[in-house]
Structures are given as structure tokens and as C-alpha cells.
């Protein structure tokens, strides 16, 4: 801490310290703690709060466990998010590799710029563009009708449609970390492996992928977190015919807050989702042996 005073003086150092701590406490730690605390209490009218009924219990979590529908949606959210993450990784790896190792000069710059464009078109519009393709009057149905493959428009909604929308919306969160990690790989290493007789598969398995580990980990963590926590994508894709059964866990949480008015139950569900994400982050980091510092890259 003395370093801080030495650099900025008592007043400046104090200001830096206070600002950073206010951010940590008021915006991050206290709100999360209050949410967790709320999740262990019953939903009471304002007058009864702090009264004899206001005791800590696991009732809200038990309710999640006891509700087969909510439980099913919870598992489906996890399962689909894992699948979205894996798909995004498979789709992105060749592109990131090409961009980082094979493309050069103006071509590399052009490709990188082309990636940035859909990245800044917002999530809702990106999802909407796929909604239009899958809709009753959408491109897929028009095409199949025109070719005479089908007689009636297909109902293309459902979990699959939500996942298509998500892979599309989140590939770029996978591709940039991968690209960053792969860019620092010395091309000579690949050349050396090739000269020593390694096949293309072997080069990727033994040289490129080990080097890309931090990027893979960060990309997977970001994509999984976005997929599990998304509200926009399922909300839009549900308007497709046949899409009403594709509910997402975040939507149940939302309805507890704004339709049911049970913030306590909603907090418990939200905390369950947060725990899930924390477990996924820790497991991925352990698996790929990377630390939190690598996120920054």
C-alpha cells in the first residue's frame, strides 16, 4: 500500500483507493451478497420483514428442486449451453488458426475487419436475422416449398432454433480469444514439426492446441456464460412456430421478478445459475491449467 502513497501522495492515493473500493463494494460485492441473503429468506410483505416469520431457510432452493418443470429447464439450459460452447469452438478453431497463422498483410486485416462487423451489430438484431430465416414465411420454408420438398411450411422453432441463434450470436466471443492465443505461436514451431515429419493432425494436436489452451479456455468460459445467461435469444426464437416449449432458465427468473413478484425465489434461482457458471469457470480453468490472469489477454 505504501507504494500507492509514494506514487500519488496521501490525497491522490486515498482517492484512488476509495474509488476502487467503492466500485468493489457498492457495485459488485454488496449487491451479490444481498441477493444471496435474500434467496435464503421467505417472500414477505414489507411490513413483515424482519419479523418472527423472517427466518433463514433453504425453502427457495428446495422449491427449485421440487418443481419438475423448472428442474428440467435448468438441466436443458446447462446441456444446451455446453453444446453451444462446443459447437462454437469447432466452428471457430479453423478460422482463428487461418487468421492467426496463415493469412498475412492486407488479407489478414480484411478478414479481421470482416469479423468485427457482425460483432458490433447487437445481439438482438443478430438473433432476429436468424429468426427471419427460420420463420413460417422465412427463407428456409420458402426454399423448401419452392423446390417442392414440402407441401406445408415447417414449424422450425424449438431448442434447436435457440441453439442455432446462440452459436450465431456468440461465435465471435470464441474466435477473438482463440485468435489472440494463436497469434503468439511462432510459425517456426509449426515448420519445425512439419520438417520432422509430423502430419497436419499431429501438428495441431501436439503443437498448436497446447499453445492455444488459454485462448480455448477463455473462449469457452465466455461463450458458456453468455449462453447460460442469455435472455434475448430464447425470447426472440420463441416467437417461431413450434418454439414455445424452448424455455430458458433466465426466463423463469425474470417472471419471478416481474410477473410473480417473488424476489426471494427469483434470487435463489439466479444464485443457482451463478453457481453453475462459477463451477463451469473453475472446471474449465483447472482442465486447461490457466489462471484468472489469462482472461485479461
Amino acid at each position, binding site marked *: 500500500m505504501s507504494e500507492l502513497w509514494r506514487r500519488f*501522495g496521501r490525497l491522490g492515493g486515498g482517492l484512488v483507493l476509495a474509488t476502487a473500493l467503492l466500485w468493489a463494494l457498492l457495485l*459488485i460485492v454488496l449487491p451479490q451478497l444481498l441477493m444471496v441473503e435474500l434467496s435464503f429468506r421467505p417472500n414477505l410483505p414489507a411490513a413483515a420483514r424482519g419479523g418472527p416469520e423472517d427466518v433463514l431457510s433453504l425453502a427457495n432452493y428446495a422449491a427449485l428442486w421440487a418443481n419438475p418443470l423448472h428442474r428440467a429447464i435448468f438441466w436443458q439450459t446447462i446441456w444446451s449451453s455446453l453444446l453451444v460452447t462446443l459447437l462454437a469452438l469447432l466452428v471457430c478453431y479453423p478460422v482463428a488458426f487461418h487468421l492467426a497463422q496463415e493469412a498475412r498483410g492486407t488479407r489478414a486485416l480484411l478478414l479481421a475487419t470482416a469479423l468485427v462487423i457482425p460483432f458490433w451489430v447487437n445481439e438482438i*438484431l443478430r438473433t432476429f436475422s436468424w429468426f427471419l430465416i427460420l420463420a413460417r414465411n422465412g427463407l428456409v420454408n420458402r426454399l423448401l416449398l419452392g423446390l417442392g420438398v414440402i407441401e406445408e411450411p415447417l414449424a422450425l422453432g424449438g431448442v434447436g432454433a435457440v441453439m442455432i441463434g446462440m452459436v450465431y450470436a456468440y461465435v465471435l466471443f470464441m474466435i477473438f480469444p482463440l485468435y489472440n492465443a494463436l497469434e503468439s505461436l511462432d510459425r517456426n514451431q509449426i515448420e519445425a514439426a512439419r520438417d520432422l515429419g509430423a502430419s497436419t493432425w499431429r501438428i495441431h494436436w501436439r503443437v498448436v492446441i497446447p499453445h492455444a489452451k488459454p485462448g480455448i479456455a477463455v473462449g469457452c468460459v465466455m461463450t458458456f456464460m453468455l449462453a447460460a445467461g442469455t*435472455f434475448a435469444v430464447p425470447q*426472440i426464437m420463441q416467437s417461431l412456430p413450434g418454439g414455445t416449449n424452448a424455455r430458458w432458465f433466465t426466463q423463469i427468473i425474470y417472471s419471478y*421478478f416481474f410477473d410473480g413478484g417473488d424476489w426471494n425465489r427469483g434470487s435463489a434461482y439466479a444464485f443457482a445459475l451463478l453457481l453453475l457458471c462459477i463451477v463451469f469457470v473453475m472446471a474449465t480453468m483447472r482442465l486447461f491449467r490457466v489462471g484468472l490472469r489469462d482472461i485479461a489477454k
Partner: protein
Amino acid sequence: MSARGLLRLFTALYLALFFAYLFLPLVFMVAAAFNASRFPTMLPWEGFTLQWFWGFDARGRPTGLFQDARMAAALWNSILIGAGVILLSVPLGLAGALLLTSLQSRLKGFLYAVLVSPILTPGVILGISTLIFWQRAFEVGGGLFLAVVGQSTFIASYCMLLFMARLERFDRTLEEAALDLGASHLQMVRRILLPFLRPAILSAALIAFLQSFENYNTTLFVIGAEDTLTINIATRVRLGLTPAVNAIGVLFIAATVLAAIGWAVLRRREVAVRRERPVPARAQRLAPAAG
């Protein structure tokens, strides 16, 4: 054909497919914005029209995006929130980065984890916890203010990472030299630190605004009865589907393409400058005086 040639062909094919996957949906969306069809679709093509930007239907009712007052209000709110997020996130991120670069102990690792954690937390949860905290502790309900606070929770983390990356290349001896030579702490910050951080401050402000502008998941929980551009778009997509939504898409894409081209041109010029002058500009300026 050799194995490597085959591989190259395969890569080219895959890249073409990937970029088609990335861009075709956006192309369809843009095309539908100019289709006279009442529904947002590219097929069947019923003729070119601009009525989804500005125009009237057969009964004289306005159909265009630019005639929608609610849209304008939502856009204004988004801009206000974005400005607020810049004003809050940039100083928070800067303070976090300066604090962390001054710490050495185990405390540093812990504080770093806390300050980066919002990036790894789902947006809906940041929104929920912000809403609960301000509602229960200060009786502040959802609205523009809470949207600024909720979004800044994680946007400040992004700003902090930008500052930390820049500070890694900072020569701390400059700071010490200034202090040793009798500069006050304020002078050192104003003359040495802030000028060095200027590019990072600008990019942090830009990123903060863009992140805020397109945020949905967090905003949804803290916005209360107000409207922002993204919330408005989501409502339109869900309820009243007319191609006016596509018109918004066209504007978004046009703005992004322009920004991307500008960025690419700047990058190319930067690369060209570096190639011509391997010596840093600063050293060059000093060189004649030394010689």
C-alpha cells in the same frame, strides 16, 4: 493434387462457408428492409420501397422508423445512459488499474479476482443484484440511473483491463524521475501519467459507450418502465412485426461498416508508418537536438 494443396483448398472452402454463415443472415435482414411486403421477409419480393424508413400506408398512417417518436425517445435514453456509463466506468476502471499496479501482495490477486468477476458473471445476474441492492438498501427503483450503475458494474472491468494493458508498457522510472525532480503528485499525474494513458482513455470511453448502447440482458432488469433502443428493438421483434425493425438493422450495420472501415484504414496507416520509421516518433524528435 498434393495433400497440402488439398488442405489449402479445403481451408478456402471452409472460410467461404464461414463468412457466408456470418454475413448472409445480415444480408437477408437488410434486403427485407427494402421489400414492400408488410412482413419482414425477403421472399417473395414485392418491390423496392423506402416506406419502412419514411412513408405512409394506404390509409395514410405513418409506417417509417423515422416517424416513430417512441423510437426517438428510446434512442435518446440510450445515448444518455451511454454518456453516464462513460462518466462512471472510465474513472472506476482507471482507479482499479492504478490501485492494482501499485499493489504487490496477495491482496492484489484477490482484488483482481473481485474486480474482474463481473465480466464472467451472466448479465442478468448483474442486473438482478443491482436492482435488489438499490431497491432494498436505498429505495431506488429501476430507471436510467440504475441502468447506468448496473451496466457500469461490468463495463468498468473492461475499462480496467484496457488500462492495465497500457500500464504494462509504462516506464515507471519516468514517474519516479518526475517526483525526484520535484514535481508534485498532481503535476506528475497531469504531465506524465495521463498523457501516456490518453489513447487508453479514449478507447475505454468508446468501448464503454458501445457496450452500454447494445446491452440488453442487464438493462432489462434495471430499466424499470423506461425504454432504451435495445429494449425497444426487442419489444418490436416480439410484438409488432413490421420491416421497420429491419430498417434499424440497416442503420446499425451501416454504422458498424463505416466504423470498421475507418478502423482498418487507421490500422493500415499505422502499420505503414511503423514500417517506414522503425524509430519511435519521440526518439526521432529528440535525435537532432542530441546530434
